């Protein structure tokens, strides 16, 4: 076989060269050298600590008052019976002293514990199509979605159906500061997207809480769902069994050592399952409510990174290893051991 013949035959068989197929793409080959490690840790430390301090300081300025009232507001020995009695007087007065000045708007929340809004059967017990569309009346689909609170005893549909709506929180709070009553602004407590799109402006409550068991609050039949902000807030199910939801806002400022009197209509039954209720008053800033967690986390991580950067400096000094020292290759190490 002649040499030149093989050469042209070989080039005829050779695949077309491209960097992609021949795996010769230009590449960055990062090595975790000491410089990079220390640099990375220092950089994170330097960035995170200020952010953390800013968050913490914002969070520290926020004043948050929590008052748990479910235990003390029911004096009867049969708590469940008391709560379920529709004729009993459930008003309860609580006094809260303000330690630091609170700048308005002051947000009022109700906080529930041990209430599993994230339970599987609870979360799926709703029909969003029914909530936004008044013409949606497919009984089978609604029944499947909202079981067991889909229809009344005689089979007529409930709007809004489902367990979430049925268990609407219905304690009310009336505030007065230093014996002067203040109004709670209950507008704009739900997210705009919910109000505008998820709850229809032409959908009205029908047959709500008319069944045998009453799970929670009642709804004004005259108001469309998109204006029932308590319902909207309640139906945005919470992630954890301890949660709070926005009740309203007090638009005025409150001074330090003012005394706030809350008259609570203690309607909601958390006694059957050992849940707790509390009312929360909180100011808000750019970071939201009082949340030390983020600030603390940032400062902690930043601090640890700076410590580690110093630790690595010490490590590289105490246990030096020349980069690319062939003595560290395992076969050289074995040979070195071997010769001993």
């Amino acid at each position, binding site marked *: 076989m002649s040499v030149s013949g093989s050469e042209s035959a070989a080039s005829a068989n050779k695949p077309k060269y491209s960097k992609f197929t021949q795996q010769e793409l230009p590449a960055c080959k990062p090595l975790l050298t000491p410089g990079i490690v220390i640099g990375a840790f220092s950089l994170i430390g330097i960035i995170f600590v200020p952010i953390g301090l800013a968050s913490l300081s914002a969070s520290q300025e926020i004043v948050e008052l929590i008052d748990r009232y479910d235990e003390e507001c029911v004096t009867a020995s049969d708590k469940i019976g008391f709560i379920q009695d529709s004729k009993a007087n459930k008003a309860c007065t609580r006094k809260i002293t303000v330690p630091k000045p609170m700048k308005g708007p002051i947000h009022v929340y109700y906080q529930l514990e041990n209430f599993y809004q994230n339970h599987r059967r609870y979360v799926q017990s709703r029909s969003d199509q029914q909530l936004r569309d008044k013409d949606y009346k497919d009984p089978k689909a609604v029944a499947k979605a909202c079981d067991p609170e889909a229809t009344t005893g005689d089979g007529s549909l409930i709007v809004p159906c489902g367990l979430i709506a049925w268990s609407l929180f219905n304690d009310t709070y009336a505030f007065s500061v230093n014996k002067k009553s203040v109004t709670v602004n209950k507008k704009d407590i739900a997210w705009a997207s919910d109000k505008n799109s998820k709850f229809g402006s032409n959908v009205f409550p029908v047959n709500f809480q008319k069944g045998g068991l009453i799970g929670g609050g009642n709804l004004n039949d005259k108001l469309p769902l998109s204006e029932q902000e308590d319902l909207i807030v309640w139906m945005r199910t919470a992630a954890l069994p301890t949660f709070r939801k926005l009740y309203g806002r007090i638009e005025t400022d409150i001074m330090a050592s003012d005394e706030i009197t809350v008259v609570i209509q203690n309607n909601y039954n958390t006694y059957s399952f050992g849940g707790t209720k509390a009312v929360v008053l909180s100011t808000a800033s750019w970071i939201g409510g009082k949340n030390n967690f983020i600030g603390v986390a940032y400062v902690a991580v930043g601090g640890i990174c700076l410590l580690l950067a110093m630790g690595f400096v010490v490590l590289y000094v105490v*246990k030096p290893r020349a980069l690319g020292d062939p003595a560290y290759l395992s076969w050289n190490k074995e040979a070195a051991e071997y010769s001993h």
Partner: protein
Amino acid sequence: MFWNLTGTRKRQSVVCRFPNGKLVLYCKGADNVIYERLADGNYDIKKTSREHLEQFGSAGLRTLCLAYRDLSMDQYKSWNEKFVQAKSSLRDRDKKLDEVAELIEKDLILIGCTAIEDKLQEGVPACIETLSAAGIKIWVLTGDKMETAINIAYACSLVNNDTKQFIISSETDTIREAEDRGDPVEIARVIKESVKQSLRSYLEEARRSLSNTPERKLAFIIDGRCLMYALDPALRVNLLGLSLICHSVVCCRVSPLQKAQVTSLVRKGARKITLSIGDGANDVSMIQAAHVGIGISGQEGMQAVMASDFAIAQFRYLTDLLLVHGRWSYLRLCKVITYFFYKNLTFTLTQFWFTFQTGFSGQRFYDDWFQSLYNVIFTALPVIMVGLFDKDVSASLSKKYPQLYQEGIRNTFFKWKVIAVWGFFAFYQSIVFYYFTAAASQHGHGSSGKILGQWDVSTMAFTCVVVTVNLRLLMSCNSITRWHYFSVAGSIAAWFLFIFIYSAIMTSFDRQENVYFVIYVLMSTFFFYLTLILVPVIALFGDFLYLSLQRWLFPYDYQVVQEMHKDDPHEYSMIRLPERSHLSPEEARSYAISMLPRENSKHTGFAFDSPGYESFFASQQGVCVPHKPWDVARRASMKQQRQQPQRTGRS
């Protein structure tokens, strides 16, 4: 008419009719099979031919013997009937043909012998040395004579003068005596007995040598006939034991079936990964018996290529195949598999922690579409890029440090320890994802004080998971091309694109609009941005710390090599398979001089040196071939050694 040479028959015959009507049977074949069929007498020719054969063998040439026999018309006719019958039989045709051929191929008269020089391909010795340095044990299985095979082994540096050789041959005196007596049962018994004794004594000797002088290399050489008895179940264990202790094994005169049997012996008996490489039709069964079969496409046809798993063009490309591509494939496979488990474990465990706080009701943390598309869109492409392109060291460095191959042999990247580390970090990251996002979302957000719901928290956590898992991949890459950047950025961008679209639409197909507008709500809070920066950093913090400590205190070999060569320029156009020598004459000369043998070896491996050597026959004939200048220097240093093979030939 003629009938063919087969591997088992090892001979080929043809019956000719001369113009004057005389019938002659000519036969050519391997020397042992021809010698078995010679008529008695003509002792001188036989002896001289044998000497010539040994001489040729020591010079590394491949030999054939030629013989003939006169046939009478009647003999031929009666034989031909049987032959035609055998040829047209429907069952056991080959066996019948063999038997019929035996009938006529006997009492042959020896004509003489021939020798062919069969050059080794370019670069074969270097290739074999590199592979030995990589920790791969190399066995040679050839159909050639023992002298030729030993010569090949010397040429390939499998055996040198310091090597302790254990030879089991069927050409010993005891066996020859038994053959002269002619009783096949007794011959078999004698051979088997001698093989058994040899194996046992060599095994002990090898073990002793290994413990006393471990640096002395051991070589085991056995021929096909003895191998037949050594593969017996009774002796197989010793055979395997001895073969595995020795650094190289040479089997000569093996038939294709025996090649396959030896390969299966190692594959099943030693449970090691075997690779066989061959270029002819006689290598097909061996190629198929090994774990990896490689065929060399070339002059001997395409049967080996068609039966193989991989086909290469020249033997020396085996280094590229194994040390470069094989090693990279191992590395990539390990990375892809461990990363896949890690990312799914992280994703799933994050959900798992949620179940403790849902009253164990089984509520899913993530939306259905998030879960379905996680492995399909949001984390799929980057890992494919890693699987295609990741290189720990470049191709030339892989060949320069063949010991790096040991990482694959020792399975360093897929041990339980490695997987446990990935699992631990998946666990740690899942805790970070779940608890940090859940804890940080408890309170009102933004100056409006509104509260986030479950689906907000889960979308936040999912975003953190996708970002972290993709960034973690970049951290574990050894070489990052722009495709990596595209795919990582693209995957994260795909997630955002998806969630922007998905949460902005309401379709009549969904029963619940859980994640409606969730991402826009989230992005209007500082919580989102603070958490998006904090959580991936905390999650990757553990991995980063571990990688830094591991590289500094317990570096892998490839990491040390990377550091040694980190300042090398990128060598993109240098990774071409060497097709022919691009050396200038001066380079060629210095290369050739450097290749001169340094020791006083009886075996020159002459026939198998790289092209450019002087032809054995040309010098015998006194033909003057134009020499290259470096060749002269070469011959000058070789001159003394050439005397010795001729001396042993004549003894």
